[in-house]
Structures are given as C-alpha cells and as structure tokens.
C-alpha cells in the first residue's frame, strides 16, 4: 500500500467512526446498535484479499479499542481475523451478484460478534455470550447487510486490491 492508500484508508476509518458515534450509537434496539466498524475489515478482505484485510482489520480494531471500555487489543484481534477470514473465503468468488456483499457482510459480522463475545468471555468479561450477544446479532447483522454496499464503495476507493506475484487480481474479478 502506498502512502496515498494509507491516507485514504485513514480518512475512511475516521469517517465511519464519526458516523458510528454520532448516528448509530443512539439507534438502540434491546440495548444493541448497528456496528459499522466490523464492516471495514470485512469489506477490505472482500475487496483486497486476506492479507490487506488482516492489516486493515488490525488497524481498525486498534482505533475502535481506543473508544471502547473492554480489553484493549480485543477488537484488533477480531478485526484482523475477520479481514483475513473474509479475504480467504471470498477469494475465488466471481463478484457479479448484487446480493453477494450484503450476504458476506451479514455472515462475517455474525462471526465477528460471536468471536468477540467468546474471546471476551475467555478474558473474563462477564455475561457477553448470554446477555449481550443475542441482541447484538439481532440488530448488527441486518444492519451490516443494509450498509454493506455503501461501505464497500468507500473501502474500494481506499484499499486497492492486492496483486499476487502472478499478476492476477485477488478476489476473482470477472474475466
């Protein structure tokens, strides 16, 4: 990634963070709200492959952790695994279906929330699985599908696809 790519990624991260805190934190259903920050590593993995997805996920997670009361580094771990996993799972797909990004966003967000709750429980954070996770899944997963395409456009502008040694673009662009 060039310095211009890093600058664009930084802008996207802070725009999404500002929108999350200003708009979405106040939209609460059963105590849960949409989580846009999970979409960034997911779409980075979808657009640019597992390695870039992991890097973006780590950075986004660290930024998110600065504003969360839970264990510092937990979001970074979940973010890099989420970006890597999404990139790996979608690497061979042909991106011609409009419903693919929302589907990927929904599935990956549910995996990310579950991973966060499980890892947090392992670290001693109480009641994440029983009390918080069901409401979070019920609210954040549909919201992720809803916001998938706008966030995908932002991330595609900021994070260029990785080019492997053989020259083929990652992500299985239609040929």
């Amino acid at each position: 990634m060039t310095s211009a790519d890093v600058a664009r990624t930084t802008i996207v991260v802070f725009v999404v963070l500002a929108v999350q805190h200003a708009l979405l934190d106040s939209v609460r259903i059963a105590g849960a709200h949409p989580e846009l920050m999970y979409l960034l590593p997911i779409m980075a993995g979808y657009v640019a492959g597992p390695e870039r997805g992991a890097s973006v996920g780590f950075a986004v997670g660290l930024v998110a952790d600065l504003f969360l009361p839970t264990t510092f580094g937990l979001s970074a771990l979940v973010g890099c695994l989420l970006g890597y996993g999404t990139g790996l799972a979608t690497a061979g797909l042909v991106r011609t279906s409009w419903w693919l990004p929302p589907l990927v966003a929904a599935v990956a967000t549910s995996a990310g929330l579950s991973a966060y709750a499980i890892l947090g429980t392992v670290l001693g954070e109480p009641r994440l699985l029983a009390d918080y996770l069901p409401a979070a899944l019920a609210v954040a997963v549909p919201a992720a599908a809803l916001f998938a395409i706008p966030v995908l456009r932002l991330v595609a502008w900021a994070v260029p696809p990785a080019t492997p040694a053989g020259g083929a673009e990652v992500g299985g662009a239609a040929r």
Partner: protein
Amino acid sequence: MARTRRTRRNRGTPLTIVLLVLASISIITLDYRGDAHGVISGIKRVAHDAFSPVQSGVDAVVHPLGSFLAGAVNAGAIQQQNARLRAEIERLQGQAAAHQDEAVRLRALEELDRLPFAAGIPTVTGQVIGLNSSDFASTVTLDVGTSSGVAIGMPVVGGAGLAGQVIDVWSDGCTVRMVTDPRSAVGVRYGPQGALALAQGGGSDQLLDIAYIAPGTSMHRGEVLTTSGLQQARYPAGIPVGTVTSFSSSASSTQESVTAKPVVDLDALEYVDVLQWLPPT
C-alpha cells in the same frame, strides 16, 4: 448466480496474519495484566481529546438525523415516556415551563442540587452526551472531564441514587460504567441491621443480582439497598443503589436469589452528578 471458480488463490504470506495475531495477543496480555495500563490509558486520553472536536462537529450536523432514527426505532417507548412525563408535569406546582423538555431538565437539575445523600462531597454536574459505544457494555459518555475535576474511579449519581462509576476520562469528557454493567459490583447494606451483600450488574436493561445473602433471610419487596462504604470500598456509604424486586431460595441453595431494580432510571438519564470522591488506595 455467483459461481465459485478455481482461481489462483492469493496464498499471500501467512506471516502477516501470524504477526498481527501475535501483536494483538501481546497487547491484550499487557492490558489484561495491567502492565501497560498507564500507557494505554494515556493513549486513550489523547485519542479522545483529539477526536472529540471532530465528533462534536459531526454530531452537530447529523444529530437531527440521529434523533429521527432513534425516535423511529423507539417510537412506542417514547410515546409511553411522553405520557408519563406529561402526568408528572401536571403534578408539579410552581414548575411552569414553556416546553416539556425544559421542565424535565429543570427538575433533573434541581434534584441534583439537593441530593439527600453523599453530604459534604463536592460534585460536578454533567450531561449525558453518548450511549454505549459497544454492544457488549453498559456505559454512557458525559461532557465533563479532567478539566472539570473528574477522575477515574469517581462515583456517578442521579437524583435518586447511584448510577455508576467513571472508568475512563479525558479533558472534556468521561466514560461511566453503569451499575447494570456485568463488570459492576457494588457493596451494599440492607435491612435494619445493615447486613452486607454485593449488587452485581445483570446487563443492559436488566435487574441487579444481589449476592451473598443467606437463604431464608427476612426481606421484602421494595427494600432499599444502599452502598456499604466499608473500608477500601469503591463508593461512599449511604447512596441508594436499588430496590428489591424478588427473592427466593431453594432447599439446596447456599444463598438467597435476590434481584433489585436500580433506583436511577438509567434509560432516561440526562443530567448526573460526579462525586469528587476517590476510593482509598
């Protein structure tokens, strides 16, 4: 329809993901053990100080849209709350106000001005400006910080009693962990003898779980639990925390199963007082 094709996967380097995972685990370990707590707190404070002007600007622009979305989602609850507030306003004497919102705020601020507990402890009044930043915690953000004399560990109260404790602070704001957060544990007293128990958060919008009450203990619904204020306690004594809503025990249980409702309406918090009192070290 999407077709899965065998394209040449980007094997990339597993080294990248391994390094990132190891870095994440290292950071988590440092924070969990408390070894880098001071550094991490400092970094968080700088991040909040740097981001809050941006956040305020964005909030000013998108606040009407945010309020619309929040209202659309919670329309039923807001209608009920409005009906309850109108009934309260009608009962208030000498509380004329042009608008319903101003009357509620005036009442909330007046309650904070004459707290029936925590006498002699200086306070800082703050406004709730943000709700849970995470789906896995029960916290609020206030608009008062270190510049107003707020520090980590200070209790936060509403007009009726304990609301939470400051867990993070920066120059013009702070994060408060509510008593309903599962990580919250408050030493309380109950009954005429002042017996001791522990009030633990049950999660957002949940009741408090009261632990360490012996089976068969005489209790009644509506009994008020107040902070114990024991030596090394995290809260001063005598602050109402909750009222008992249910209690039961079975033959084989080692303690009474007791739940309590927080005395402060945490869903309707607008103004709170931060008690400038710190637990003894």
